[in-house]
């Protein structure tokens, strides 16, 4: 039994700019985008003052998002709520599409999580410069003492890298573990049924693969996917919120 740990499969390479790979990740990203747009279109098509069952759920989720953003970033930063929500939904749906086994989780590709983490860093830098000025932002690297400057620069770079690797590692690690367990269960099946004649043994499916991985999937896909989406969104909120202090009169 061979178990190969690979990155996303390359479906096609567009032969320009030195080759643009259309991979499983690309397809998954597109599927998630279309799915979320279609979902939100149908969920918010008939919004009424007296909500139906579906609208109550959607409203509850949206108000939870706004509540979380308000608690973490403050009332003055509520304008970031749609972005945080988008990030959260992209992350959790990106992880969950991996459960189809046809598509690969978008978040199991370091390129995706790094891209999102860099957006967070860009938002932090942009808002820091906007709110404190370019020089004050630069000066922030020399605090609390000048000797700390290299450390501060390293931590500034480490911030998106750690975010990206944390998310990628959790999801990709989960998928690797799942693959390993599938392999192990297949090996167990063939070992236990090796006494059967070859004719039967070759058509008998690896029966131990049924059921057991489902429980692992609850943890690695549902739980871990949710937690990582939450962690990524929360870190984004905290970092960006730190760059957007409340207006002076609110202090």
């Amino acid at each position: 039994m061979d178990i190969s740990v690979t990155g996303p499969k390359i479906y096609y390479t567009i032969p320009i700019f030195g080759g643009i790979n259309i991979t499983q990740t690309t397809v998954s990203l597109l599927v998630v985008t279309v799915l979320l747009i279609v979902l939100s279109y149908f969920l918010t098509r008939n919004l009424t003052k007296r909500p139906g069952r579906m609208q109550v759920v959607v409203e509850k989720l949206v108000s939870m998002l706004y509540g979380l953003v308000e608690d973490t970033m403050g009332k003055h930063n509520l304008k970031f709520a749609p972005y945080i929500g988008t990030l959260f939904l992209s992350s959790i749906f990106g992880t969950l599409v991996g459960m189809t086994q046809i598509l690969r989780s978008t978040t199991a590709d370091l390129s995706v999580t790094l891209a999102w983490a860099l957006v967070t860093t860009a938002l932090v830098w942009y808002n820091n410069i906007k709110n404190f000025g370019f020089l004050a932002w630069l000066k922030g690297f020399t605090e609390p003492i000048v000797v700390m400057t290299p450390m501060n620069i390293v931590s500034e770079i480490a911030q998106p890298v750690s975010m990206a690797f944390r998310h990628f590692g959790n999801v990709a690690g989960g998928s690797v573990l799942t693959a390993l367990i599938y392999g192990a269960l297949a090996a167990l099946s063939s070992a236990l049924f090796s006494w059967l004649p070859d004719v039967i043994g070759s058509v008998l499916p690896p029966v131990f693969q049924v059921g057991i991985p489902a429980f692992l999937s609850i943890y690695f896909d549902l739980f871990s996917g949710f937690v990582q989406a939450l962690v990524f969104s929360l870190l984004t909120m905290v970092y960006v919120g730190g760059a957007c202090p409340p207006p002076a009169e609110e202090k």
Partner: protein
Amino acid sequence: MKGFLDAFEGFVGVNFWTMIFAWCNLLILYFFLRKLLFKPVKNMIDSRQKEVDDMYDEAEASRKDAAEMKAEYEEKLAHAGEESEEILKRAVRKAQLREEEILREADEKAARTLKRAQEQVELEKKRAINEVKNEVSDMALGIAAAVIERDIDKKEHEAMIDDFIRQMGEAS
């Protein structure tokens, strides 16, 4: 063909083009979800919240109005009791005054009547005295005539007797 399908990217690797795809998808999703999901739902929640708040404010205002009106009426009612009492008191006082006035008037009238009666009595008395005087003079005349048995000048005698009686009256 087999080799083409078996092509994989590295497990841990960054593909710049995938990053660009991720950014594009994130951007597109952001705009669509904001427009389709977050904004309308948030607006709906806010507008409903506002409506509920307005309703509560309105109810509170009505309640306050009603309470104010009630207090006003209660005050008016209490005041009405006082006012009626005042009116009653005034009426009683007026009646008392009127009673006294009537009594006084009656007294005055009685006094006047008495006085007039006294005057009349006086007048009658005077008249009676005069009558008596006349009769006495007539009698005296008759007596004198009988005494002297002579017809004397009646007129002269009458004057004489009158003088006599007046002197008597003045003396008495």
